[in-house]
């Protein structure tokens, strides 16, 4: 196995006082400072429309921060791909089979393809998609499509994985069934994760740390450490009093932010 998460390790990526304003003047991110350590799973929750996804866009370099900076203290010395992303909407290419979709990174990066050839087979196995290797996306269920999108992103063996409400379109049993595989795979490949979600249970289940954001423009309202460690049983955990307590605290903080955003919207109205 690769290195374990280390409290003392230099951050993989850090955001220093990052703010982001859209060209139309809407300020999505107020000022956020945040460091993600290698292998750490960090959850981001917040009132809807608060700028959670904008945070991921800045990290993925779809937009530059209006102020502040994003730094990768470990530099580029690692030969691993810096980051990949699972989008809320479907990104599978419908004319490619599951296998070819998972191989997309290898197709786009021919030079790195050789050293990472085995990973595709391994990921397809880990995600339970062995029987669907040659299937096209339209032949898959919603859950299988999301699994394929997830392992397509993981096939790049990224150091950081951005998850933008990746399972929000799934029903709860399907979602929970995917959670265990997601955890196993990100730990197996020692990938750090930044998970944006509106599902507090999902955040508490998957993350080592959960950050609650304020309403737009987003700032950090509170941060909660999760004590379950990397080896966890996502089903059993849901009945653990610690989980229920954490869920309660997250809900308390989030509802406070929702209340505040409602109140401020009320003031703005004529």
């Amino acid at each position, binding site marked *: 196995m690769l290195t374990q998460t280390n409290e003392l390790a230099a951050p993989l990526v850090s955001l220093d006082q990052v703010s982001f304003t859209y060209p139309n003047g809407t300020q999505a991110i107020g000022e956020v400072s945040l460091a993600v350590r290698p292998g750490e799973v960090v959850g981001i929750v917040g009132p809807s429309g608060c700028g959670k996804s904008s945070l991921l866009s800045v990290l993925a370099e779809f937009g530059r921060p209006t102020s502040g900076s994003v730094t990768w203290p470990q530099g580029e010395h690692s030969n691993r*791909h810096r980051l990949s992303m699972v*989008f809320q909407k479907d*990104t599978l290419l419908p*004319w490619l089979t599951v296998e070819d979709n998972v191989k997309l990174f290898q197709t786009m990066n021919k030079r790195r393809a050789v050293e990472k050839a085995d990973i595709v087979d391994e990921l397809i196995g880990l995600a339970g998609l062995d029987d669907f290797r040659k299937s096209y996306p339209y032949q898959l269920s919603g859950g299988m499509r999301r699994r394929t999108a997830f392992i397509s992103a993981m096939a790049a063996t990224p150091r950081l994985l951005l998850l933008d409400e990746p399972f929000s379109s799934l029903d709860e049993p399907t979602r929970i069934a995917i959670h265990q595989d997601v955890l196993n795979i990100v730990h197996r490949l020692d990938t750090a994760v930044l998970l944006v979600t509106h599902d507090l249970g999902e955040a508490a289940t998957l993350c080592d740390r959960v950050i609650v954001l304020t309403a737009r423009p987003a700032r950090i309202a509170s941060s909660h450490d999760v004590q379950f460690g990397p080896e966890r049983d996502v089903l059993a955990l849901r009945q653990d009093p610690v989980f229920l307590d954490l869920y309660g605290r997250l809900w308390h903080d989030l509802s406070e932010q929702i209340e505040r955003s409602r109140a401020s919207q009320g003031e703005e109205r004529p």
Partner: protein
Amino acid sequence: MKAKTGVRLQQLALLVGLLVVWQFAPQVGWVHDSIKFADPYFISSPSEIVTTIYDMATGHNDSLVMWSYLLSTVVASLLGVLVGTVLGAVAGLWLSNNQHWSDVLRPFIVALNAVPRIALIPVFIIIFGPTLKTAMVTAITVVFFIVFFNAYEGGRTVPPHVINNARVLGATASQVMWRVRWRYVLAWTLASLPNAVSLGLITVVTAEILTGTTGMGRLILNSVTTVDAGLTFAVVVILSVLGSVLVGATAVAERRWQHWWNQGDGVIGS
């Protein structure tokens, strides 16, 4: 299977019915009296058309033999459609992938598309002579624009998150163009082919009528000077069979490459 046989039988019955009406209605007194053109002199008849086609195919009854004329039309149409389609698809792909040049060139393309290409045939005759080339070039100018606009729209329908996903996985601009956009462009190009083929054929025949030297258009010119409805309709029937065969060939290509298209995956991420 049974339902399909039923459809085929009804199609056959409809065809036979139409032929019977065409053949025998002009012989009914009141039809002949009340509709002026219900006369084989104007509209010929199925039996006369069959005889004419037979004569033209074999040279029977001192008839003109049509094969060299037909070959000329087929070659001009096929080359015209092929070259026009390839140029239109590639131009559509390129401009849909390139915002800057799309902004610069679009007004020109719209203006060029408004030019009545048929009016340019005299210019083409001066340049290329009254040959097959003139018919082919005119067809290219018509087919190019039909395919281009479809291909361009196809390239623009790729959802932004699909492009972003490819970029995050390390795709270069040309990889985004060929590995992501191209399949959408191809799908929309194939969808435009039935129109492109039939308009290409119309253009070729029009050019042939104006040049008056080769092709089925030349035979139509003969039928005008000899006031021969049988010959006109014989040519028309042959041309529609030719058009149907060409359109049928595009349908085969579509079924083979675009199986995913008709499975609700035409617009991914919806």
